[in-house]
């Protein structure tokens, strides 16, 4: 006991001194170090990595070798990656490729992945790391206003440039490049899959409500909802997350494309304009067809409602095929799909346009992108990644070398994704992070009827004023 106390005295002294030092160090670090990294990311990487190939051969280090036709430094190298979830095909495919790389190319390579499923907890961690100049090598991050600050500070890499160096840009489908890109059109994130969004519906529920065709227009959608509700079932299964903001975007997207949300997020068009209010009105009207208590429901449970025939429709996407599909990736027998209904003849968007995206992007720190072994791995990764997708049950972000192993449905979805003219932007990503919080807070109130569309719009306009125009 005596010794323990002495130890603890020493420990706390050491700690106090260390902490004081740390306090000073932390503060001086924030402005300076980043500028040099910027240059490395923007200009030098091209030179550096092309040089890397030759260097690898000429280099005096014994470890610099070429294995399986792929260059490697052969040195120990670790990539630290903050990802969303361990379950899911894309991450399993990535892990498989890491293993292949270790086996075939560089046994000293490791990838340490930390999974943080809760979005707030993940953002909290990434923001803490960023504030301490300790960005992870790779991390999952929406291309939002926070990311733009990292981008402007030169802390994250230009992925498009990396694709160009590797000569693989053309292999990606357009949306896989355009979705994770900055306002100036620079590709700044990795799309891991091709996702398209649509409604799943239960055929038995539709039949019982005497609905013989899927809704083509928003008016028909309301009719369908009404008919299902009359049979006592839940028309639309809903959870309380990002999904609601998609519903909010439906009408404005059909009316103006992405023009409205982009203007609104920039503060040049108020939410209380005609388009904004139309979107708000739509969600207030459709809200009565969600199941009771939807704000705290979770997606697994509500998706199951549709599979079981307790609810009629569920807006989701291709990633949910593991719930709504069979082992062979075709839809279950009682499930059908339909895409985003149109408003009418005056729509700014084609009926086939809708929400397509590459999933939440992964971005790469500028520091990591400047590493030679990262480039070696990245080259290897993209030579194998697209071909592994079908096997892992999802759709690749770029053209696979063959369509073998894809179900008919997957082929169709991939075809739609490859040929989609435009894609709808997600409001929570376009709006700055502070306004996005308000959007996520106030929209459920609007849907529940606690706010009128006008009140809702007024709160958002106020938020925009605070966050954008100050």
């Amino acid at each position, binding site marked *: 006991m005596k010794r323990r106390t002495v130890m603890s005295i020493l420990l706390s002294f050491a700690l106090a001194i260390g902490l004081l030092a740390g306090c000073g160090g932390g503060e001086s670090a924030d402005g300076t170090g980043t500028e040099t990294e910027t240059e490395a990311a923007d200009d030098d990487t091209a030179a550096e990595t092309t040089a890397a190939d030759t260097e690898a051969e000429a280099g005096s280090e014994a470890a610099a070798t070429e294995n399986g036709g792929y260059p490697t430094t052969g040195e120990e190298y670790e990539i630290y990656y903050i990802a969303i979830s361990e379950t899911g095909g894309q991450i399993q495919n990535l892990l498989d490729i890491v293993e292949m790389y270790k086996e075939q190319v560089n046994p000293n390579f490791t990838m340490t992945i930390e999974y943080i499923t809760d979005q707030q907890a993940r953002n909290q961690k990434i923001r803490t790391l960023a504030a301490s100049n300790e960005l992870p090598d790779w991390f999952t991050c929406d291309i939002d206003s926070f990311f733009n600050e990292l981008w402007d500070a030169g802390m994250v890499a230009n992925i498009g440039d990396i694709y160009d160096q590797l000569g693989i840009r053309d292999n990606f489908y357009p949306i896989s490049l355009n979705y994770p890109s900055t306002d100036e059109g620079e590709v700044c994130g990795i799309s891991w899959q091709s996702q398209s969004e649509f409604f799943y519906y239960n055929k038995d529920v539709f039949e019982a409500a005497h609905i013989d065709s899927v809704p083509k227009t928003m008016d028909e959608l309301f009719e369908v909802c009404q008919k299902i509700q009359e049979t006592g079932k839940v028309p639309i299964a809903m959870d309380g997350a990002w999904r609601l903001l998609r519903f909010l975007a439906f009408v404005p997207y059909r009316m103006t494309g992405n023009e409205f949300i982009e203007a609104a997020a920039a503060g040049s068009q108020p939410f209380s304009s005609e388009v904004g209010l139309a979107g708000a009105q739509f969600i207030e009207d459709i809200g009565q067809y969600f199941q009771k*208590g939807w*704000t705290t429901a979770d997606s697994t449970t509500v998706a199951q409602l549709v599979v079981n025939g307790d609810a009629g429709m569920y807006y989701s996407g291709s990633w949910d095929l593991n719930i709504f599909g069979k082992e062979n990736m075709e839809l279950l027998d009682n499930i059908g799909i339909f895409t985003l209904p149109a408003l009418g003849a005056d729509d700014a968007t084609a009926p086939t346009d809708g929400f397509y995206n590459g999933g939440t992007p992964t971005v790469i720190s500028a520091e990591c992108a400047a590493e030679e072994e990262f480039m070696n791995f990245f080259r290897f990764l993209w030579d194998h990644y697209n071909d592994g997708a079908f096997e892992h049950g999802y759709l690749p972000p770029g053209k696979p070398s063959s369509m073998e192993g894809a179900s008919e449905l997957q082929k169709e979805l991939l075809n739609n994704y490859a040929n989609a003219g435009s894609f709808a932007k997600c409001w929570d990503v376009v709006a700055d992070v502070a306004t996005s919080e308000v959007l996520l807070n106030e929209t*459920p109130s609007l849907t529940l009827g606690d706010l009128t569309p006008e009140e809702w719009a007024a709160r958002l306009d106020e938020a925009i004023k*605070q966050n954008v125009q100050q």
Partner: protein
Amino acid sequence: MCNNKGSRIHFPATNGRFRGRVCSRDIQTGGQTELKTKKSKKKIAPWLFSGPALLAYTSVVIVPIICSLGFSFYDYSGVGKRVFNGINNYVRMFRDDTFLIAIKNNLLLMAGSTAIQMVLGLVLAILLSNIRKFTNVLRVAYFVPCIISSAAICQIFSKMFSIVPEGVIPALMRLGGMEQIAFLSDSKWALAIVIILDAYKYVSMHMIIFYSALMDVDESVVEAAIVDGCGWWKLHTKIKIPMIMNIIVMELVLLINGTLKAFDISYILTKGGPGTTTELVVTYMYKTSFGMAKFGVGSAMAVFLAVESLAAVGIVRYIGNKLQRRYT
């Protein structure tokens, strides 16, 4: 004749062997002498004993909070430069309607949850102190919600409140012939449910504190009162409760301080929603700092919270001291 004599609480029996030894020495040396002989040592010794804790506490809690409070005078998003902006963050904070709503909700939660935990805790403790059998089993049972993590409790309750598929609470409402209410999605109910769950999770902790205080009330006082013909009700209201008034005040301090910093139930169960109906000061502070990346304003909120807690606890202690003086 139930007066309050003898309200000083005696030291409970401890290790008998030890006590005996010291007592005999007591007699030998004549007791009350103090450590006057070692005056010079006395000055350093307390610091040697409390120093490690003081140092650890200062370096772990005080230094970071001071660093962090500095942020509250800067415009700081976590990336890039900090821009000094004086008290602007404080001005912005108080102009933010959501923050004002959060304060209001938090005060309601403080009042509601504290009241429930005090009253229910005390009532349960009194009941428990009046039965003979199974007290041990009951005490363990009561403690279960304290042990389950908040994340788990919230997941469990969101399932129990769910209407489709039907959870146990809507099912009971259906059986009772009531219309089912989606409590967690209903702006009229959500805060009440958060308050009830907050109280539910921690009530047993406070119940046990009250219980042990009641068990510790001097037996001789109780016996004397009973001999004087004091009935059950009077025994509790006039003797036992006044005798544990110091505990009640201490509990009030702990509870008010705890509920002002309440976070997890609201954050996990309702995410502050629907709308802002269950937003609390700490949940909003967390969202502001890490969601909106406005660390400056977030730090200002932390300052507000510390001042608020200090004020609340100060008021309680002031009133508490008066109460205690009246009863002792």
